[in-house]
């Protein structure tokens, strides 16, 4: 397992490379919101989470639920690099017969905890998992990644209330605050601010961190580990992060690169990896 900050940052870029290449190969998919979550995913799978690809059903493992299921490519990339499946299999994304369905399917690949893709449901599922851990006296942590646009869905707030009411302190939520969704800026589509205040008002331990700063993410995870209540980390991120022409571009939410774009993107990420 990778350990140092530099190694995790490098791993995040390796995951980015996979995201770009696999969505290009598929001819579709969601690169933007996958790239914005790359640093978090590298931190979780290569530093913070207690997990073992050889024992994907290990009862004491930490759990991760990708509520924003359209970012499946980043989850698949992390699982592959962590050893849950061959890296070559990433090329099968979205193809007939592939285990890499357009959106994650529970247990299709070991390590996928829940089926997602319909936004707004993952936090409820994560609450159920965290509650089961609490009932069974287990210490595992449950992590859940939400989109910022996704937070417009009311079910999240039902779940937020629930987690706080049942004091699910082993639950940590990340909001990928990339400020974009399909129809444009979150602020214009449906403003979700003041976001930190909302979570605080629901009784959560709230932190804000630079979602592209490895140490800042690790630090937030460590603080959440010690919290006496559920934690929410609002990650300030850039959609499409790591590929300059995709950064902060709404059109790369659900569109893959063409050949030429792919070449540029790969070159840029490779440079970052080799640096």
């Amino acid at each position, binding site marked *: 397992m990778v350990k140092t900050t530099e190694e995790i940052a490098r791993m995040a870029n390796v995951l980015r490379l996979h995201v770009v290449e696999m969505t290009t190969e598929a001819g579709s998919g969601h690169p933007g919101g996958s790239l914005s979550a790359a640093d978090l995913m590298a931190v979780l799978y290569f530093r913070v989470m207690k997990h073992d690809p050889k024992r994907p059903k290990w009862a004491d493992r930490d759990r991760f639920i990708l509520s924003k299921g359209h970012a499946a490519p980043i989850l698949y990339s992390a699982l592959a690099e962590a050893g849950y499946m061959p890296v070559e299999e990433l090329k099968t994304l979205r193809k007939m017969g592939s285990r890499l369905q357009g959106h994650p399917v529970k247990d299709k690949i070991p390590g996928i905890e829940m089926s997602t893709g319909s936004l707004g449901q993952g936090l409820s599922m*994560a609450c*159920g998992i965290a509650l089961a851990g609490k009932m069974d006296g287990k210490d595992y942590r449950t992590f859940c990644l939400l989109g910022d646009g996704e937070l417009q869905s009311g079910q999240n707030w039902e779940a937020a209330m629930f987690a706080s009411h049942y004091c699910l302190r082993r639950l940590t939520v990340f909001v990928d605050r990339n400020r974009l969704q399909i129809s444009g800026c979150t602020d214009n589509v449906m403003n979700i601010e003041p976001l930190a205040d909302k979570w605080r008002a629901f009784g959560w331990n709230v932190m804000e961190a630079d979602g592209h700063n490895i140490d800042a993410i690790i630090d937030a995870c460590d603080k959440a580990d010690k919290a006496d209540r559920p934690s929410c980390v609002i990650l300030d991120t850039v959609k499409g992060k790591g590929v300059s022409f995709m950064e902060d571009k709404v059109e790369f939410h659900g569109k893959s690169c063409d050949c030429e774009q792919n070449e540029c993107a790969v070159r840029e990420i490779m440079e970052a990896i080799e640096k």
Partner: protein
Amino acid sequence: MKLAQRNYYGKALEFLGKTREDIVVLDADLASSTKTLDFLKAAPDRFIEVGIAEQNMIGIASGLAASGKTVFASTFAVFATGRCWEQIRLAVAYPKLNVKIVSTHCGISVGADGTSHQALEDMAIMRALPNMTVISPADAYETYDATLAIAEREGPFYMRMGRSDVPTVMPEDTGFTIGKANVLVDGSDVSLIGTGQMVHACLEAAEALRKDGISAEVINMSTIKPLDTAALGKSVGRTGCVVTAEEHSIIGGLGSAVAEYISEEGFVPMTRVGTRDTFGESGTPNELFRKYGLTAGDVASAARKTIAKKR
């Protein structure tokens, strides 16, 4: 004797609470009505109140089941299926999780509360989901047995029952086999296939028909999906015509399930008794059953009409 099915659902949960550590029960602020309160008394640590948040309840159930729990999630039928259908689809049915959605207050027998609380479409929308088994017990005893049976069987289930006291039609120790219909009366002129409390109406109708020299077979089809097509085929093969009866829309429920089978197997005359593409309204259960055509008399006249169509 008349008994409320939900009371026996509660009793069965209470028994499960005492005998099985893996059972968790969820409710959305209706525990006193759905009778999940009985489980709360038996196993307080494993009863989870979710508040008025049915969509969240399904997600919680999904997460618990994925972590090894056998989960019962209850509320009124309209809310248990309609408010959170898509949550059930993705979080329960698709991953085949061990969640039992058990609803009370189905149908127009809800009575005075009116349309907002009368689920007449719940079986249709649950039946359409792959991996979902749909059960509608006929009386209190069968509800008790069915509750234990679905707790034993891994996977997603939907079970419905009404609010009111209903006549008992099944002997107390019949037991419950998922997917198996019960022939309650043998007959040769027409098959009366009932589900839920309409099984009793079928029995009464058979009695009335017998006085006219018509021999009606009565079947309790308490599993709507998968349908016991063997029992159905055998009965219809003998009688040559069929009437279905359910406290549910004729669209999508028992009548549809039977019609789908009958029409694919070859044509026999058939009539569906149920609400006819309409919402309910406030009234007493008896008044509503008369207005919406769900009485034993309605089943009997449907039988006469259907028999007349036989060649």
